[in-house]
């Protein structure tokens, strides 16, 4: 049985009678999900791929279900198998198991990418699929389905604007905003609502952390500091005074950003330095334990820690910056959580290599902000001398 779970096996048994033999399907799909690093088991997966494609449209529901617990690489083996079946069936004038596919799209417990795939196969055989399904998907956990649902509401809002019905347009944009997680859509909504006299708190919508404690500078000569665990990585004491780069004292300062995208400019907050490491710390209160994505943007070398555990690193400098560029996956505890960022500046002297900044937001897997508050316990308060608003 390998990595195939009981639930999945049960699900396959519950498929319509027209579907392929459950046992063979599970075994074949298991081989697609068994591909390892550096091409391990590729040969067996290739044979399984041909076999499952040969099973035709009846295999589609099982392929989709197999994506539920597949890793990203295995999911792509499954995706191409399903897509190939659908493409060849449509080209040959054969039908797809539309009812089973539509059921699958509606079942939000399934993998979002798999549900999106089922939706796209339905769209191939029924052009009215978007009209029928998207209306109920504004809060969908599949980012792609949700994005299209938001786009559909935006189209309605535009139409209301064209009719000069501003109240209806405002209501439609507000409705779209409840689902919007992608920056381009949120930007558009915020701009249109602003024109209608309705201000959007973009930072709150995205879940950007706006209040931080910052400390610098630690040595990053020759980019070596990226892999040096300076004292803040061993535990944050906001009142601590560290021995920083060149023996200079380093103290925590409090910073609040008013940037709509939560940007903290370290050159402004800490002074311009090269070849240095800064840390940013925020104590986060979560109302419940939950999975979280810590999404950051930074043009600098960056590490992300949650509750003392490193979740993400990228040691690259001055090659671009964007919202959600770095994604760390972790778990928030109920109550207090400690979020720590390491933001490294290198020693390049070109004009385009001077930025030193970051932004961080907390969201779920689809990109919607998760509820949190920034805690302010007594121990979090550094000396007041450093308050700054970049």
């Amino acid at each position, binding site marked *: 049985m390998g990595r195939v779970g009981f639930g999945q096996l049960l699900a396959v048994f519950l498929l319509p009678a027209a579907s392929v033999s459950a046992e063979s399907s599970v075994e074949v799909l298991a081989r697609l999900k068994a591909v390892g690093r*550096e091409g391990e088991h*590729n040969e067996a997966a290739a044979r399984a791929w041909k076999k499952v494609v040969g099973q035709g449209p009846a295999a589609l529901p099982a392929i989709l279900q197999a994506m539920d617990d597949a890793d*990203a*690489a295995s999911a792509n083996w499954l995706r*191409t198998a399903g897509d*190939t079946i659908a493409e060849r069936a449509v080209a040959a004038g054969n039908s797809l198991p539309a009812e089973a596919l539509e059921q699958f799209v509606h079942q939000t417990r399934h993998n979002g990418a798999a549900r999106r795939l089922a939706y796209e196969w339905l769209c191939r055989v029924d052009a009215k699929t978007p009209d029928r399904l998207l209306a109920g998907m504004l809060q969908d956990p599949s*980012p*792609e389905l949700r994005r299209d649902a938001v786009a559909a509401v935006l189209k309605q809002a535009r139409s209301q604007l064209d009719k000069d019905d501003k109240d209806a347009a405002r209501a439609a944009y507000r409705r779209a905003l409840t689902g919007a997680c992608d920056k381009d859509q949120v930007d558009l909504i915020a701009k249109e609502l602003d024109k209608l006299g309705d201000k959007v708190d973009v930072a709150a919508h995205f879940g950007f952390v706006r209040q931080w404690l910052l400390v610098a500078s630690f040595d990053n000569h020759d980019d070596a500091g990226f892999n040096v665990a300076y004292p803040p990585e061993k535990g944050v004491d906001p009142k601590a005074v560290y021995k920083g780069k060149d023996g200079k004292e380093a103290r925590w300062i409090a910073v609040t950003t008013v940037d709509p995208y939560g940007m903290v400019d370290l050159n402004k907050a800490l002074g311009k330095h090269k070849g240095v490491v800064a840390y940013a710390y925020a104590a986060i209160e979560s109302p419940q334990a939950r999975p979280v994505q810590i999404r950051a943007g930074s043009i600098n070398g960056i590490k992300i820690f949650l509750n003392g555990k490193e979740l993400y690193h990228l*040691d690259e400098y001055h090659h*671009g910056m964007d919202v959600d560029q770095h994604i760390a996956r972790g778990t928030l505890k109920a109550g207090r959580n400690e979020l720590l960022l390491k933001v490294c500046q290198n020693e390049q002297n070109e004009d385009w290599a001077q930025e030193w900044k970051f932004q961080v937001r907390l969201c779920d897997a689809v990109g919607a902000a998760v509820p949190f508050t920034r805690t302010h316990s007594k121990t979090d308060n550094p000396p007041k001398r450093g308050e700054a608003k970049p």
Partner: protein
Amino acid sequence: MKRLLLSVILLLLARPAWAGDWPQFRGPGGAAVSEEKGLPIKWSATENVRWKAELPGRGVSSPVIAAGRVYVTSASTYRERRLHVLCFDAATGKKLWERQFAATGGTMCHPKTSMAAPTPVTDGQHVYALFATGDLAAFHRDGDLLWYRSLLRDYPDITNQVGMAASPVLAGDTLLLPLENAGDSFALGVDVKTGRNRWKTPRRREINWVTPTVARFGGKTAVLFQTSGDITAYDAANGAVLWSYKNDKLGTVPSPALLDDLVIVPGNPSVALRVSEGGNPEVVWKSRKLAAAYASPVVYRGKIYAMTGIGVACLDASTGEELWRERLGTGFSASPVIADGKLYVAKEEGDTSVVELGDKPKILANNSLKEPLLATPAIAGGAIYLRTEKHLYCIAAKK
């Protein structure tokens, strides 16, 4: 009779890419030269267009053509998270198949480039597609998946947030992958049948876009990998270093060009190396006249043609002496290609200049498609294939 016919068909299908095919970035051997003749000189979005196909999303990779099929990659959806490999019938433009992947690596890149920046490579029977996300796949010509790898799963510290764009190449049954980047930087030789590693060797840790070049040295098939600090020939079969030339002023985008035993290495200055039987590279000449930002130089009939900031320069390949220059405008992201004594130069705004080569150049036409055009043209089967941001054009006289 049927069995004989089947045998003939199988024999034809089993052969490597045809001589007139365009199997990889910059065509056969990466030389950017086609033997095709009678190609159109003038065209527009409607004139001399045999067919035109809409592509999903966008991309800057070139099409490759072999055995009557055109393969091209594309990237779509928000932040180019969806990757596509498409196959078209070269004669009619009919889409034969399309496969998709979800990106498994980051999709951050400079707005000029795309996750569909590396050009695929084909041996006529199979096509191998690499994306800037590190997703790598091999398909049979009929669209069956042979294997797939997520290189970011295998090597999570690969990173180039400007966007990876160097293309894979083939040497026999080894697929050669340029994965020089700012993190885990290496060159990789992969078994085409299984997708498993044959060899992996560390490379300079910097972002880089040079497509490797396959060549013969000392009776061995070598692959040349170039960064700003070196050009190194590796045995394509096992990754052993055959020779290396170190110089901190070499280019990080244009590919080298070959002429007999000369290796012309783009840089500032560019360097012509002669590699002895023993594998020692000797500098024959240096020139600052070959300083293209993105476009690779092309060697044709003893001369080098290289893009400048505003046009093309022609140099004597044996001496590096400049013979002439011609203004063609600006915006040369694509590399020039040559066929039938004519240079085809694609420009970012969608124009392609056709220049007759000789002792003096003659501009024959400037053909506009009025769409962003950053991909290097491909030439095969009496047609010029131009991949704009959103379309694939087959430029040829209508049959």
